[in-house]
């Protein structure tokens, strides 16, 4: 009965004296789908990096097909039949699909130095067919959507004849449709006897896909077992080590009738079309949309990092004439962007430098622009403790060293220091673990309770249903529907987004 393909036996690993994996033992059955879950920093990535030959382990051993397995580098892991599909995809965007597939092992014409283009093309077509991609092998990777790139990665794994395929958070940048498609492919790989390790924060997906579930916490395996022993509530409490009664904090305030932000007929060619909505004081207005629906572009237009062709934006009764982040900030609008790394944070700067960035003008003396250092330091301290940012020394430690949740708190914190009356948040909980999500919702609730209005953009319906007063549904650059709290219904919202419902 037991046909183990891979065993971790008491594997230890520490980085600079900090143990990240402690005595990890996992048995993996051939042909199973293993769902691996745990908070950020629980050790999932390190364990997979060990398996993929990226880092060595300190103690213990690994058995692959019953044989000792010690990969020295990623190439030897590949030869051993292990393929690792990363969160950040590792494709060369300036090369074609075919070139990506054979990059490490181009077939030659006989023994000559010339590449066998015909063989490369036909083989690539074969592998693409296996993952249902109807694309020419010569398509450049930068022309592909994130979902298609993911599938090219899978095709690459197949081309290397992998027997174990690791997926690390594969769906973070995929739309619902692409996700469904990927799951179909994963099921097919499963049927053909491949072993899959699937790492994700989206517990519902893990529960849907996996045969067995492994829960890691603080570098230790806290539980393993077949899927039927788990439900979402249990998975969460195992991951965080305590019972979380609810995923979403209680709202303590009600929205008012006073309109603070209004969009009238906003249009930008090819991006958004005729957007109308109003945001009220004390309201938490959700915007649901899939990738490419125009949700992020709408946020950028409202904040002023993007322009628009027609329509008007009315803030607090005044028609907006100038479009710029500086103007928006003066009107107390805040914008938590979708990607923390590129647009949210100065990753190599300290927590304090990041927190102070937006409010610098308020702490600068007139004319000379000399900073009132002590006042700024005081304000930074207050925000750090108010938001419970976990950092040793906010004035010395770089943001880069913080966990995703704490990084996001820093982004929120830098805007909170400016007392926003309108807060636009775009995917604020992406890449953030369950515990920190709860905290982020709480922070947003507090802002709303103080009378600010929040535009909450997300591609996770559950979180919008959990926190919002009203949900706008966007798709194809338009607002396709609006749901009041009483009518919140997962399927209906999704149907509206796909224009499959009543409309």
């Amino acid at each position, binding site marked *: 009965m037991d046909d183990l393909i891979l065993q971790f036996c008491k594997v230890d690993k520490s*980085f*600079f004296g900090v143990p990240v994996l402690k005595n990890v033992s996992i048995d993996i059955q051939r042909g199973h789908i293993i769902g691996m879950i745990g908070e950020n920093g629980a050790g999932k*990535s*390190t364990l997979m*990096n060990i398996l*993929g030959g*990226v*880092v060595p382990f300190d103690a213990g051993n690994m058995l692959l097909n019953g044989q000792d397995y010690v990969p020295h580098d*990623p190439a030897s892991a590949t030869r051993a039949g292990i393929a690792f599909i*990363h969160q*950040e995809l590792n494709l060369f965007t300036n090369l074609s699909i075919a070139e990506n597939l054979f990059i490490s092992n181009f077939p030659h014409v006989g023994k000559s130095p010339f590449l066998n283009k015909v063989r490369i093309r036909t083989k690539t077509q074969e592998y693409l067919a296996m993952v249902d991609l109807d694309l020419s092998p010569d398509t450049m990777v930068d022309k592909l959507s994130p979902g298609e790139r993911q599938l090219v990665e899978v095709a690459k794994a197949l081309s290397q004849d992998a027997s174990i395929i690791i997926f690390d958070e594969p769906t973070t940048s995929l739309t619902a449709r692409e996700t469904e498609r990927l799951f179909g492919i994963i099921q097919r790989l499963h049927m053909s006897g491949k072993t899959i390790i699937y790492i994700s924060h989206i517990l519902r997906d893990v529960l849907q896909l996996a045969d067995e579930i492994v829960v890691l916490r603080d570098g230790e395996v806290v539980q393993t077992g077949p899927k039927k022993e788990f439900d979402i509530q249990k998975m969460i409490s195992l991951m965080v080590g305590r019972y979380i009664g609810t995923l979403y904090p209680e709202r303590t305030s009600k929205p008012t009738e006073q309109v603070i932000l209004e969009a009238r007929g906003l249009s930008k060619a090819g991006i958004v079309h005729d957007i109308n909505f109003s945001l009220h004081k004390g309201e938490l207005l959700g915007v649901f949309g899939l990738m490419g629906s125009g949700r992020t572009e709408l946020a950028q237009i409202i*904040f002023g*990092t993007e322009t628009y062709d027609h329509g008007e934006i009315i803030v607090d009764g005044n028609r907006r004439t100038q479009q710029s*982040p*500086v103007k*928006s*900030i003066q009107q107390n609008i805040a*914008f938590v*962007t979708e990607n923390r790394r*590129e*647009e*949210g*944070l*100065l*990753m*190599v*700067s300290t927590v304090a*430098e990041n927190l*102070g*960035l*937006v409010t*610098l*003008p308020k*702490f*600068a003396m007139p004319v*000379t*622009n*000399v*900073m009132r*250092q002590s006042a700024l330091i005081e304000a930074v301290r207050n925000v750090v403790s108010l938001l419970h940012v976990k950092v040793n020394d906010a004035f010395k430690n*770089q943001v*880069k*060293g913080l966990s995703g949740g704490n990084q996001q708190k820093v982004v929120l914190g*830098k805007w909170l220091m400016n007392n926003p009356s309108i807060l636009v948040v775009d995917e604020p909980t992406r890449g953030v673990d369950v515990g920190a999500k709860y905290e982020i919702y709480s922070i947003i609730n507090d802002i709303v309770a103080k009378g600010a209005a929040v535009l909450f953009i997300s591609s996770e319906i559950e979180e919008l249903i959990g926190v919002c007063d009203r949900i706008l549904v966007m798709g194809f650059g338009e607002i396709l529907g609006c749901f009041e709290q009483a009518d919140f219904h997962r399927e209906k919202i999704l149907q509206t987004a796909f224009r499959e419902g009543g409309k």
Partner: protein
Amino acid sequence: MTIRETLARETIRERLGKLPRQLLMSEYFILILCVFVFVALIPFVPVIASAYNMSSLLSNIWPLYAVAIGQTLVLIIAGIDLSQGAIISLTSVIGASLIATSADPIVFSKSPIWGWLLFENGGILSSTSAGILVAVIVMLLVGLLIGFINGTVIAHAGIPAFMVTLVTQTFFAGLAIYYVKSENIINLPDGFTAIGNDSGGLISYPLLITVLLAILSQFILSRTMFGRWLYATGTNIRASIVSGVPTKKVVVLTYMFSGFCAAVASVLYSARMDMGRPTLGSSLLLDVIGGAVIGGSSLSGGKGKVLWTFFGVVFLSLLGNALSLLNVPFFWIEIAKGSVILLAALLDVTRTRILQYNV
């Protein structure tokens, strides 16, 4: 953690012991190195420690440092200013043409300024009492103007700084030569050459002016909002824009400051050499950027300090001085300087990695 980060962490940990790592990471690494080189050379060339040599070494350092301060600020915003040399040359001839006490008609009659700015009995301002002050102000304004052109094109047209300043470097270096038809303007008034005169021991005008410039820049960087904006813009311009940093204004002002620093250095150099020289700044570029980079400013932006650059400039000058005292031929000195700058760039990469992973 991505694969690359993890790998980098591991290699750095394995390759470096604790002490070398601390030394490498120290802010004063280059200063320590300078002292070490200096002391080590005394037995071979005792003259290096002589008062005369020290004072000549320092008088070379001050104007170079003034230029490098401006370059440091530009490097912090992840830019580069290749036009500083041309600014030095152009402001030198413009300033000198205004205040020269006499000019040889045979030499200058073909120059475009002959007859309306420059005459046989000197520059147009040579007879006015405030002439020197006005000439210096004009030089500084020209520096600011060229910086403004650089900054505006970079910020608003979005052309890379390298390209823009390469073009302005070529253009204004050419203009400087055209302006005087490649002749040096000599016979500058005593009041002007006194600025560059450093025979009065260690405390001299160049020292005072440059140190003042350094203190001012350091104050701007560490104590003002503009300084914060400068570092933020260089670290992540996208995030800075979203956070309401007026990045275009920051870029324009920084290049203006860079031009200003070059003009200050031009005043010091021209006064010391007692001439307006159309090629005055043509060979300075490597020393300026090298000094800043050796000091620890990063070519990728967000990092740099005025004090660090001082160490870098001292180190490079000391190296040149020592090698020439050792009678090493000129071309070998250039080769050595180039190698050291390459090493410094390598050091920068290593440091950045170490800092990134908080080893």
